[in-house]
């Protein structure tokens, strides 16, 4: 590994909404790229060695927790699983994700948005049945469990919203993430809600009828969820309700 590593430039949009004295501005950081360097490693190095006041969010640094969405050279991605070597020019521009409240620099408030979404679509099992947890569990067809799991893999990272044109025009749009949650519960045999019940939650233009099928969400979803397919499926279901 004695080969000289190249120098890369990371250009970051810095802004602290709580500090009105400083305007939003791009700051360039130059650093030596190390083998296998991810944006997680790069940003930590910048914070430790160049700018202790740089804000961003990482938790798992493994592409699992959904904390680190940001816009990298124009595309929303999970920063922790983005290798700097994928940018041959060696210049990387980082912006915070749109669609969410900016906290500071690259840190945005996805948690607040996702909590509100979860409450709005009632993102939990709804049932009148009492489960006796001392007794053998209800059986579930393995295929069905697998299908529910497929959709349950969403990590609420928000990349789908950051790449959604509808969200720009309709601030209250629940997004692919919200519609996917509904599709997930619609499929879950533990959930007793009917299509009419789901219609109450998403049967309008801020819900399933708002989507313009531009595919941005599916293209950027780090979990490769079949979002368009599921949205189309939910739309057909909801159309048949009314």
């Amino acid at each position: 590994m004695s080969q000289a590593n190249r120098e890369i430039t990371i250009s970051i949009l810095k802004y602290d909404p709580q500090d009105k004295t400083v305007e939003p501005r791009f700051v360039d950081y130059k650093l030596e790229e190390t083998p296998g360097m991810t944006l997680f490693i790069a940003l930590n190095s910048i914070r430790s060695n160049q700018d202790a006041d740089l804000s961003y969010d990482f938790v798992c640094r493994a592409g699992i927790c959904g904390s680190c969405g940001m816009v990298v050279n124009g595309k929303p991605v999970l920063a922790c699983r983005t290798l700097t070597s994928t940018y041959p020019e060696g210049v990387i521009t980082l912006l915070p994700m749109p669609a969410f409240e900016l906290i500071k620099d690259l840190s945005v408030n996805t948690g607040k948005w996702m909590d509100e979404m979860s409450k709005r679509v009632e993102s939990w099992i709804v049932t009148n049945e009492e489960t006796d947890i001392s007794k053998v569990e209800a059986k579930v067809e393995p295929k069905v469990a697998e299908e529910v799991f497929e959709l349950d893999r969403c990590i609420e990272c928000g990349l789908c919203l950051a790449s959604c044109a509808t969200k720009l025009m309709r601030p209250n749009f629940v997004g692919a993430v919200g519609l996917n949650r509904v599709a997930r519960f619609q499929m879950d045999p533990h959930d007793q809600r009917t299509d009419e019940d789901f219609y109450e939650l998403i049967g309008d233009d801020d819900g399933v009828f708002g989507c313009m099928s531009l595919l941005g969400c599916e293209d950027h979803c780090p979990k490769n969820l079949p979002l368009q397919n599921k949205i189309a499926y939910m739309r057909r279901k909801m159309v048949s309700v009314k």
Partner: protein
Amino acid sequence: MKVHYCDALVIGGGLAGLRASVAAQKKGLNTIVLSLVPVKRSHSAAAQGGMQASLGNSKMSEGDNEDLHFADTVKGSDWGCDQKVARMFVHTAPKAIRELAAWGVPWTRVQEGARTAIINAKQTTITEDQDRHGLIMSRDFGGTKKWRTCYTADATGHTMLFSVANEALKHDVDVRDRKEAISLIHENNRCYGAIVRDLITGELEAYVSKGTCIATGGYGRLYKSTTNAVICEGIGAALALETGVATLGNMEAVQFHPTPIVPSGILLTEGCRGDGGLLRDVDGHRFMPDYEPEKKELASRDVVSRRMMEHIRNGKGVPSPYGDHLWLDISILGREHIEKNLRDVQEISQVFNGIDPAVEGEKGWMPVRPMQHYSMGGIRINPTGESQNMAGLFSCGESACWDLHGFNRLGGNSVSETVVAGMIIGNYFADFCANNDVEISTATISKKLEEQQTYLEGLVKGQGTENVFKIKERMQEIMDDKVGIFRDGKNLADAVEELKELLERSKKLKIASTKMHNNPELEEAYRVPKMLKLALCVAKGARERTESRGAHYREDFLKRDDENWLKRTLTSWKSDEDLEPTITYEDIDIKTMEMPPAFRGYGAKGMTIEHEDASVRQAEVDNLTKEMQAAGKDRHEIQEALMDFDLPMNYKQKNERVGD
């Protein structure tokens, strides 16, 4: 002054804290959960492999029950655990998993008919019975007699966390993220909540409550090489320590996982080996059977980790710019199995290392090396979850030393512990909150608040010369190099001295920005001294413990010493001026054990200094068991006679199984 009152305050929104909050809220208490990050991003989300519960549904878990789960857990702990707690746990685990199923966790289910599996590097056919079709499936994990680990492919923690978090929202638990507890409010050995910093505005607020439950997870980030998320800094345990009253238990009990990927430290789940993956060395040789002929790759984690390091020391490691490593080979499982059941593993390997593990032969092998993984130590609590020294302070999950895991935790027992403890301790905690009032004056609260405000202002104004990032980095190096997998007296003594120096230096910081809000360096500045205190508890506890037990391995004291060391280390921090913790010990009584100390069944034999009570108690247990069996008593009655235990709610009910 911003003061929030509530009945029940839960600090930490991982699996443990959220499940406890549901318990409290369901008892009609006004419950608040605080978290550093949106709760669904808590470290629990990273658990891949699964959750242990003795359902006994699938073929390979046929005949499983609480007794077997109990025995595995006690052996795994190297007899360091509290056996009563282990009983409470194994009895509630099947209930926990069934509750989670009802809350929507899409557990992988049993598919009737024949399928092939890799067992011990051989293709084997397993046929599932028709009457089991659709029940919860389980897989093999290290250190267990039966296949007991239930899972949702390899995203188990994620699906569990989402279900429990959404259940908390459904029950209207007040969940608040980007809120960090930085100090506990306490008076006369009773806890009344916490001083909390808003991580967006920087404002300090007092959360005053009847009871407080700390569920802040582990302290893996004391180490440089760790599988843990970056927020696993042990701050919750440090808050308890800093009261000067509450004690921490067995902080030196730190687990290293055999197979994080090199260099990032991202974990490749134990499911890789459970499903049949192999470990290979520089020559491509499968070496584990040479060391552990019986359990091979599936001996308990501490044993596999040490054998790997031993093999590397014997010159069989693969050299790399990031140090020597070994290979993990799952290609023998076949692409189909990998793409279905080990998809996250494949993705991690592809994204971070550019390796597709489904490719056969050397090209598909993944570089691995043991790294810090789990914190057995934590806030020392009673079986009900309450601190032994401070009333109204509870803890559950990885932040606690309940003591389910003793000196080594079994894979799959941790996420299981989080929900089980959330159920059991959550209910005892709720009862405490329902039966006690806040008896602290507003004057005391505002004094605590001011103290912290002054402290933080002092930090940003500090005129020292030290850089907090450098201090943290050095601490992490010391922990890796001197308080790691192989330990000895000299290195541990050095570690304690150097950590003390770092703690001194951490009092003389210089911070670049004087902003009180959203200032990452300020956050490091108040966290790092807390971390150093924990590191000192770990290092000093390890220095004093002159034996090897579970994950604590002393090269200068190779034997497990039941005669002198069948006890728990308790650390406390008596005064702010102190540079090291005060240590006392709590004896573990063999005479009350259901399963007296013996050989674990893996690792080297003849490595125990026995305690005289062990054989006496074993004879007692054997006699009573024989007598009762002769009198026609069943296993539940016998167990109760040997070692009775209590549980809240109706958790004591027998667990039904299809095989009954």
